[in-house]
Protein backbone atom coordinates (compact mmCIF):
# COMPACT_ATOMS: atom_id res chain seq x y z
CA UNK A 1 0.00 0.00 0.00
CA UNK A 2 1.45 3.34 -1.00
CA UNK A 3 1.53 5.93 1.74
CA UNK A 4 -0.46 8.73 0.20
CA UNK A 5 -3.77 10.39 0.81
CA UNK A 6 -5.27 13.59 2.14
CA UNK A 7 -5.79 14.75 5.68
CA UNK A 8 -7.01 18.02 7.13
CA UNK A 9 -6.68 18.45 10.86
CA UNK A 10 -9.10 20.36 13.03
CA UNK A 11 -8.15 23.79 14.27
CA UNK A 12 -5.45 23.51 16.91
CA UNK A 13 -4.69 19.87 16.17
CA UNK A 14 -1.33 18.69 14.85
CA UNK A 15 -1.38 17.29 11.31
CA UNK A 16 1.00 14.53 12.43
CA UNK A 17 -1.59 13.11 14.82
CA UNK A 18 -2.63 9.52 14.16
CA UNK A 19 -5.96 9.92 15.93
CA UNK A 20 -9.05 10.30 13.67
CA UNK A 21 -10.62 12.40 16.43
CA UNK A 22 -8.23 15.22 15.42
CA UNK A 23 -9.27 15.42 11.77
CA UNK A 24 -11.88 16.91 9.51
CA UNK A 25 -10.73 14.75 6.60
CA UNK A 26 -8.41 11.77 6.85
CA UNK A 27 -8.55 9.56 3.79
CA UNK A 28 -8.10 6.44 5.93
CA UNK A 29 -11.63 7.08 7.21
CA UNK A 30 -14.92 7.46 5.42
CA UNK A 31 -17.16 10.48 5.94
CA UNK A 32 -20.96 10.40 5.70
CA UNK A 33 -22.08 12.21 2.56
CA UNK A 34 -25.65 13.12 1.63
CA UNK A 35 -26.49 11.99 -1.88
CA UNK A 36 -30.23 12.43 -2.42
CA UNK A 37 -32.35 14.78 -0.36
CA UNK A 38 -36.09 15.09 -0.72
CA UNK A 39 -39.46 15.76 0.85
CA UNK A 40 -42.81 14.01 0.87
CA UNK A 41 -46.10 14.17 2.72
CA UNK A 42 -48.96 12.03 4.00
CA UNK A 43 -52.51 13.11 4.74
CA UNK A 44 -55.52 11.27 6.10
CA UNK A 45 -58.80 12.34 4.58
CA UNK A 46 -60.93 10.76 7.31
CA UNK A 47 -60.83 8.22 10.09
CA UNK A 48 -61.47 5.26 7.78
CA UNK A 49 -58.53 6.37 5.66
CA UNK A 50 -56.16 5.67 8.56
CA UNK A 51 -57.00 1.98 8.23
CA UNK A 52 -55.41 1.69 4.79
CA UNK A 53 -51.79 0.83 4.26
CA UNK A 54 -50.06 3.47 2.17
CA UNK A 55 -46.85 3.92 0.26
CA UNK A 56 -45.92 7.51 1.02
CA UNK A 57 -43.10 7.82 -1.45
CA UNK A 58 -40.60 5.75 -3.39
CA UNK A 59 -37.27 7.16 -4.55
CA UNK A 60 -34.84 5.33 -6.80
CA UNK A 61 -31.22 5.76 -5.77
CA UNK A 62 -29.74 2.95 -7.93
CA UNK A 63 -26.59 2.75 -5.83
CA UNK A 64 -26.44 -1.04 -6.06
CA UNK A 65 -26.22 -1.44 -2.27
CA UNK A 66 -28.30 -0.43 0.73
CA UNK A 67 -27.21 3.05 1.76
CA UNK A 68 -27.40 4.72 5.12
CA UNK A 69 -30.50 6.93 5.34
CA UNK A 70 -31.81 9.43 7.82
CA UNK A 71 -35.23 11.01 7.96
CA UNK A 72 -37.28 13.54 9.84
CA UNK A 73 -40.97 14.12 10.04
CA UNK A 74 -43.42 16.57 11.44
CA UNK A 75 -47.12 16.91 12.10
CA UNK A 76 -49.22 19.69 10.58
CA UNK A 77 -46.17 21.81 9.76
CA UNK A 78 -45.67 22.48 13.43
CA UNK A 79 -41.91 22.61 13.00
CA UNK A 80 -42.06 26.37 12.58
CA UNK A 81 -43.38 27.00 16.03
CA UNK A 82 -44.37 23.76 17.59
CA UNK A 83 -41.02 22.05 17.65
CA UNK A 84 -42.31 18.85 16.23
CA UNK A 85 -39.55 17.71 13.94
CA UNK A 86 -38.57 14.28 15.12
CA UNK A 87 -35.43 12.56 14.10
CA UNK A 88 -35.98 8.88 13.44
CA UNK A 89 -32.95 6.92 12.44
CA UNK A 90 -34.80 3.68 12.69
CA UNK A 91 -38.54 3.58 12.90
CA UNK A 92 -40.89 5.64 14.99
CA UNK A 93 -43.39 3.54 16.85
CA UNK A 94 -46.90 4.89 16.68
CA UNK A 95 -48.26 2.19 18.98
CA UNK A 96 -51.04 1.11 16.63
CA UNK A 97 -49.73 2.29 13.32
CA UNK A 98 -46.25 2.67 11.94
CA UNK A 99 -44.57 5.10 9.63
CA UNK A 100 -41.24 3.68 8.60
CA UNK A 101 -38.85 3.43 5.71
CA UNK A 102 -37.62 0.52 3.63
CA UNK A 103 -34.25 0.57 1.91
CA UNK A 104 -33.25 -1.74 -0.91
CA UNK A 105 -30.24 -1.77 -3.20
CA UNK A 106 -32.15 0.37 -5.69
CA UNK A 107 -34.72 2.42 -3.80
CA UNK A 108 -35.86 4.13 -0.65
CA UNK A 109 -39.53 4.16 0.33
CA UNK A 110 -41.66 5.45 3.18
CA UNK A 111 -44.66 3.38 4.26
CA UNK A 112 -47.59 3.82 6.54
CA UNK A 113 -48.95 0.55 7.90
CA UNK A 114 -52.17 0.08 9.80
CA UNK A 115 -52.34 -2.82 12.20
CA UNK A 116 -55.02 -2.90 14.85
CA UNK A 117 -53.37 -6.06 16.15
CA UNK A 118 -55.98 -6.45 18.82
CA UNK A 119 -55.21 -3.03 20.20
CA UNK A 120 -58.45 -1.48 18.99
CA UNK A 121 -59.30 1.07 16.43
CA UNK A 122 -55.96 2.75 16.19
CA UNK A 123 -55.42 6.44 15.84
CA UNK A 124 -58.72 8.02 16.64
CA UNK A 125 -59.24 11.62 15.74
CA UNK A 126 -56.28 12.11 13.41
CA UNK A 127 -58.24 12.64 10.19
CA UNK A 128 -57.06 16.25 10.03
CA UNK A 129 -53.40 15.37 10.36
CA UNK A 130 -50.86 16.02 7.65
CA UNK A 131 -47.38 14.64 7.96
CA UNK A 132 -44.32 16.08 6.28
CA UNK A 133 -41.14 14.13 5.67
CA UNK A 134 -37.59 15.05 4.85
CA UNK A 135 -35.25 12.24 3.90
CA UNK A 136 -31.52 12.00 3.34
CA UNK A 137 -30.05 9.14 1.34
CA UNK A 138 -26.32 8.92 1.94
CA UNK A 139 -23.68 7.44 -0.32
CA UNK A 140 -22.36 5.43 2.58
CA UNK A 141 -22.91 1.73 2.42
CA UNK A 142 -24.97 0.21 5.23
CA UNK A 143 -25.63 -3.30 3.96
CA UNK A 144 -26.10 -5.94 6.60
Amino acid at each position, binding site marked *: *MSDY*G*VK*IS*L*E*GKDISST*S*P*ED*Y*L*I*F*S*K*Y*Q*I*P*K*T*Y*IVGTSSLSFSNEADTHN*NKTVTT*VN*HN*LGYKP*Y*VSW*YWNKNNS*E*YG*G*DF*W*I*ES*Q*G*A*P*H*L*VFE*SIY*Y*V*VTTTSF*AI*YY*TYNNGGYGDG*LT*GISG*YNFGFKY*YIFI*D*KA*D*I
Partner: protein
Amino acid sequence: MSDYGMKVSQVGVDVLTSADNQYVFSSAFGGLLIKDNVTINSGGTYTHNYGYIPVYTAEAFFTPNTQTAGLNVGADSTKIYNNSSNNLRFFLFARDIRTNLSGVNITNTPSPVSSANLDYGFKVSSDGYNVKTTGLTNLVSFSGVSLAGNPVRQLIIHQTGFQDNINSGTTLNISHNLGYVPQFWAYYRKHPTVIYSPEMVNYQVNFDSTVSITYQATVSSSEISFYNNLGSQIDVAYVIFKDAI
Protein backbone atom coordinates in the same frame (compact mmCIF):
# COMPACT_ATOMS: atom_id res chain seq x y z
CA MET B 1 -5.76 31.97 15.47
CA SER B 2 -4.24 32.22 12.01
CA ASP B 3 -6.69 32.55 9.15
CA TYR B 4 -5.94 29.47 7.13
CA GLY B 5 -7.72 26.24 6.37
CA MET B 6 -9.56 24.56 3.53
CA LYS B 7 -13.09 24.67 2.25
CA VAL B 8 -14.92 23.22 -0.73
CA SER B 9 -18.31 24.47 -1.85
CA GLN B 10 -21.04 22.37 -3.36
CA VAL B 11 -21.32 22.17 -7.14
CA GLY B 12 -22.26 25.48 -8.74
CA VAL B 13 -21.60 27.66 -5.69
CA ASP B 14 -18.77 30.18 -5.42
CA VAL B 15 -16.62 29.10 -2.49
CA LEU B 16 -15.92 32.75 -1.65
CA THR B 17 -19.60 33.56 -1.11
CA SER B 18 -20.97 30.18 -0.07
CA ALA B 19 -23.34 30.00 2.86
CA ASP B 20 -22.27 27.74 5.71
CA ASN B 21 -24.73 25.08 4.60
CA GLN B 22 -23.55 25.13 0.98
CA TYR B 23 -20.11 23.73 1.66
CA VAL B 24 -19.12 20.16 1.00
CA PHE B 25 -16.89 20.81 4.00
CA SER B 26 -15.03 23.65 5.65
CA SER B 27 -12.26 23.45 8.20
CA ALA B 28 -13.95 26.35 9.99
CA PHE B 29 -16.50 23.83 11.21
CA GLY B 30 -16.51 20.32 12.61
CA GLY B 31 -17.14 17.06 10.80
CA LEU B 32 -17.59 13.37 11.43
CA LEU B 33 -15.22 10.59 10.45
CA ILE B 34 -16.56 7.04 10.44
CA LYS B 35 -14.30 5.09 12.78
CA ASP B 36 -16.20 1.82 12.58
CA ASN B 37 -19.01 0.55 10.35
CA VAL B 38 -20.35 -2.67 11.82
CA THR B 39 -23.34 -4.99 11.83
CA ILE B 40 -24.58 -6.09 15.26
CA ASN B 41 -27.06 -8.91 15.36
CA SER B 42 -30.16 -8.77 17.50
CA GLY B 43 -29.20 -9.07 21.15
CA GLY B 44 -25.51 -8.61 20.39
CA THR B 45 -22.80 -6.13 21.31
CA TYR B 46 -19.75 -4.65 19.63
CA THR B 47 -16.68 -3.75 21.67
CA HIS B 48 -15.12 -0.52 20.40
CA ASN B 49 -12.93 0.36 23.41
CA TYR B 50 -12.67 4.01 22.35
CA GLY B 51 -12.48 5.17 25.94
CA TYR B 52 -15.32 7.59 25.28
CA ILE B 53 -18.96 7.26 24.26
CA PRO B 54 -19.00 7.84 20.51
CA VAL B 55 -21.55 9.63 18.37
CA TYR B 56 -23.26 6.80 16.50
CA THR B 57 -26.22 5.87 14.32
CA ALA B 58 -28.22 2.68 13.93
CA GLU B 59 -29.75 1.59 10.65
CA ALA B 60 -32.60 -0.92 10.40
CA PHE B 61 -33.90 -2.65 7.32
CA PHE B 62 -37.61 -3.29 7.46
CA THR B 63 -39.97 -4.87 4.98
CA PRO B 64 -43.15 -3.27 3.66
CA ASN B 65 -46.47 -3.59 5.46
CA THR B 66 -45.09 -4.82 8.73
CA GLN B 67 -45.59 -3.40 12.16
CA THR B 68 -42.36 -1.82 13.35
CA ALA B 69 -41.11 -0.83 16.74
CA GLY B 70 -38.55 1.61 18.01
CA LEU B 71 -34.95 0.47 18.09
CA ASN B 72 -33.59 -0.41 21.49
CA VAL B 73 -29.89 0.36 21.19
CA GLY B 74 -27.26 2.05 23.32
CA ALA B 75 -23.61 2.94 23.75
CA ASP B 76 -21.11 3.37 26.53
CA SER B 77 -17.38 4.00 26.51
CA THR B 78 -16.51 0.42 25.58
CA LYS B 79 -19.45 -1.13 23.73
CA ILE B 80 -22.44 -0.68 21.45
CA TYR B 81 -25.54 -2.66 22.39
CA ASN B 82 -28.27 -3.90 20.07
CA ASN B 83 -31.24 -4.96 22.16
CA SER B 84 -33.63 -4.70 19.22
CA SER B 85 -35.35 -7.56 17.48
CA ASN B 86 -33.59 -6.59 14.24
CA ASN B 87 -30.03 -7.02 13.09
CA LEU B 88 -28.73 -3.48 12.70
CA ARG B 89 -25.95 -1.60 10.96
CA PHE B 90 -24.06 0.91 13.10
CA PHE B 91 -21.83 3.80 12.18
CA LEU B 92 -19.47 4.80 15.01
CA PHE B 93 -17.88 8.20 14.63
CA ALA B 94 -14.58 9.54 15.90
CA ARG B 95 -16.22 12.00 18.23
CA ASP B 96 -17.05 11.90 21.93
CA ILE B 97 -20.78 12.29 22.47
CA ARG B 98 -19.97 14.49 25.47
CA THR B 99 -18.15 17.23 23.59
CA ASN B 100 -19.10 20.88 23.78
CA LEU B 101 -18.77 22.88 20.59
CA SER B 102 -20.36 26.31 20.33
CA GLY B 103 -22.26 27.02 17.16
CA VAL B 104 -20.59 29.60 14.92
CA ASN B 105 -22.27 31.22 11.95
CA ILE B 106 -20.12 32.81 9.25
CA THR B 107 -22.92 33.39 6.77
CA ASN B 108 -26.34 31.85 6.41
CA THR B 109 -27.21 33.86 3.30
CA PRO B 110 -27.40 31.42 0.37
CA SER B 111 -25.13 32.06 -2.58
CA PRO B 112 -26.61 31.68 -6.09
CA VAL B 113 -26.25 28.22 -7.61
CA SER B 114 -24.89 28.32 -11.14
CA SER B 115 -25.31 25.57 -13.69
CA ALA B 116 -22.43 26.84 -15.81
CA ASN B 117 -18.88 25.52 -15.90
CA LEU B 118 -19.34 22.68 -13.45
CA ASP B 119 -16.35 20.65 -14.56
CA TYR B 120 -14.18 21.29 -11.54
CA GLY B 121 -14.22 20.23 -7.95
CA PHE B 122 -12.58 18.07 -5.34
CA LYS B 123 -12.32 14.31 -4.97
CA VAL B 124 -10.45 12.08 -2.52
CA SER B 125 -10.60 8.29 -2.65
CA SER B 126 -10.28 5.81 0.21
CA ASP B 127 -6.98 4.11 0.89
CA GLY B 128 -6.05 1.78 -1.93
CA TYR B 129 -8.54 3.04 -4.52
CA ASN B 130 -7.71 4.91 -7.69
CA VAL B 131 -9.45 8.26 -7.46
CA LYS B 132 -9.93 8.33 -11.23
CA THR B 133 -11.76 5.04 -11.52
CA THR B 134 -13.29 4.04 -8.19
CA GLY B 135 -17.01 4.10 -7.52
CA LEU B 136 -18.88 6.46 -5.22
CA THR B 137 -18.73 4.21 -2.18
CA ASN B 138 -14.92 4.33 -2.15
CA LEU B 139 -14.68 8.09 -2.21
CA VAL B 140 -13.94 9.75 1.12
CA SER B 141 -14.91 13.21 -0.03
CA PHE B 142 -15.96 14.77 -3.28
CA SER B 143 -17.96 17.58 -4.78
CA GLY B 144 -20.50 16.32 -7.24
CA VAL B 145 -24.17 15.70 -7.81
CA SER B 146 -26.36 12.64 -7.50
CA LEU B 147 -28.38 11.19 -10.35
CA ALA B 148 -31.30 13.08 -8.85
CA GLY B 149 -29.34 16.32 -9.18
CA ASN B 150 -28.69 16.86 -5.48
CA PRO B 151 -25.30 18.29 -4.54
CA VAL B 152 -23.22 15.90 -2.47
CA ARG B 153 -22.35 17.29 0.96
CA GLN B 154 -20.61 16.04 4.05
CA LEU B 155 -22.34 16.38 7.37
CA ILE B 156 -21.02 19.65 8.77
CA ILE B 157 -21.30 20.08 12.51
CA HIS B 158 -22.69 23.38 13.75
CA GLN B 159 -22.94 22.71 17.46
CA THR B 160 -22.57 19.84 19.91
CA GLY B 161 -23.07 19.56 23.63
CA PHE B 162 -24.44 17.68 26.56
CA GLN B 163 -26.43 18.40 29.68
CA ASP B 164 -26.74 16.22 32.76
CA ASN B 165 -29.40 15.79 35.43
CA ILE B 166 -32.56 16.94 33.65
CA ASN B 167 -35.41 16.34 36.04
CA SER B 168 -38.45 14.29 35.08
CA GLY B 169 -41.40 16.48 34.13
CA THR B 170 -39.20 19.23 32.71
CA THR B 171 -38.03 20.43 29.30
CA LEU B 172 -34.52 21.60 28.49
CA ASN B 173 -34.20 24.13 25.64
CA ILE B 174 -30.83 24.89 24.06
CA SER B 175 -30.41 27.67 21.47
CA HIS B 176 -28.61 26.89 18.24
CA ASN B 177 -28.84 30.30 16.52
CA LEU B 178 -29.11 28.94 12.99
CA GLY B 179 -32.36 30.60 11.96
CA TYR B 180 -33.58 27.45 10.23
CA VAL B 181 -34.71 24.01 11.40
CA PRO B 182 -31.53 21.93 11.28
CA GLN B 183 -30.84 18.26 10.91
CA PHE B 184 -29.81 16.87 14.29
CA TRP B 185 -28.98 13.72 16.19
CA ALA B 186 -29.82 13.45 19.88
CA TYR B 187 -29.14 10.91 22.61
CA TYR B 188 -30.18 10.40 26.20
CA ARG B 189 -29.50 8.16 29.14
CA LYS B 190 -31.90 7.55 31.96
CA HIS B 191 -30.37 7.44 35.41
CA PRO B 192 -28.86 5.26 36.73
CA THR B 193 -27.83 3.62 33.43
CA VAL B 194 -24.59 4.72 31.78
CA ILE B 195 -25.75 3.84 28.28
CA TYR B 196 -26.68 6.58 25.84
CA SER B 197 -29.51 5.78 23.42
CA PRO B 198 -30.74 7.65 20.35
CA GLU B 199 -33.90 9.64 20.80
CA MET B 200 -36.33 7.21 19.18
CA VAL B 201 -36.02 4.68 21.96
CA ASN B 202 -39.10 4.72 24.19
CA TYR B 203 -40.49 7.44 22.02
CA GLN B 204 -44.24 7.49 21.67
CA VAL B 205 -46.17 10.01 19.63
CA ASN B 206 -49.15 11.65 21.22
CA PHE B 207 -51.49 11.32 18.25
CA ASP B 208 -54.38 10.35 20.42
CA SER B 209 -55.11 10.88 24.06
CA THR B 210 -54.46 7.28 25.04
CA VAL B 211 -50.74 7.60 24.44
CA SER B 212 -48.43 9.69 26.59
CA ILE B 213 -45.05 11.02 25.63
CA THR B 214 -42.31 9.91 27.98
CA TYR B 215 -39.36 11.46 26.18
CA GLN B 216 -38.77 13.43 23.04
CA ALA B 217 -36.10 15.48 21.35
CA THR B 218 -37.35 18.10 18.91
CA VAL B 219 -35.91 21.02 17.07
CA SER B 220 -37.17 24.35 15.80
CA SER B 221 -35.49 27.18 13.94
CA SER B 222 -34.10 28.55 17.19
CA GLU B 223 -33.51 25.72 19.63
CA ILE B 224 -33.30 22.02 20.35
CA SER B 225 -35.56 20.77 23.13
CA PHE B 226 -35.50 17.72 25.34
CA TYR B 227 -38.64 16.70 27.19
CA ASN B 228 -38.24 14.23 30.03
CA ASN B 229 -41.15 12.44 31.62
CA LEU B 230 -39.43 9.13 32.26
CA GLY B 231 -39.77 9.27 36.01
CA SER B 232 -36.11 9.87 36.78
CA GLN B 233 -33.35 12.26 35.75
CA ILE B 234 -31.76 11.96 32.33
CA ASP B 235 -28.53 13.16 30.72
CA VAL B 236 -28.70 14.27 27.09
CA ALA B 237 -26.25 14.89 24.28
CA TYR B 238 -26.78 16.30 20.80
CA VAL B 239 -25.18 17.04 17.45
CA ILE B 240 -26.68 19.82 15.31
CA PHE B 241 -25.70 20.01 11.66
CA LYS B 242 -25.51 22.89 9.23
CA ASP B 243 -28.25 21.50 7.07
CA ALA B 244 -31.80 22.80 6.92
CA ILE B 245 -34.58 20.28 7.21
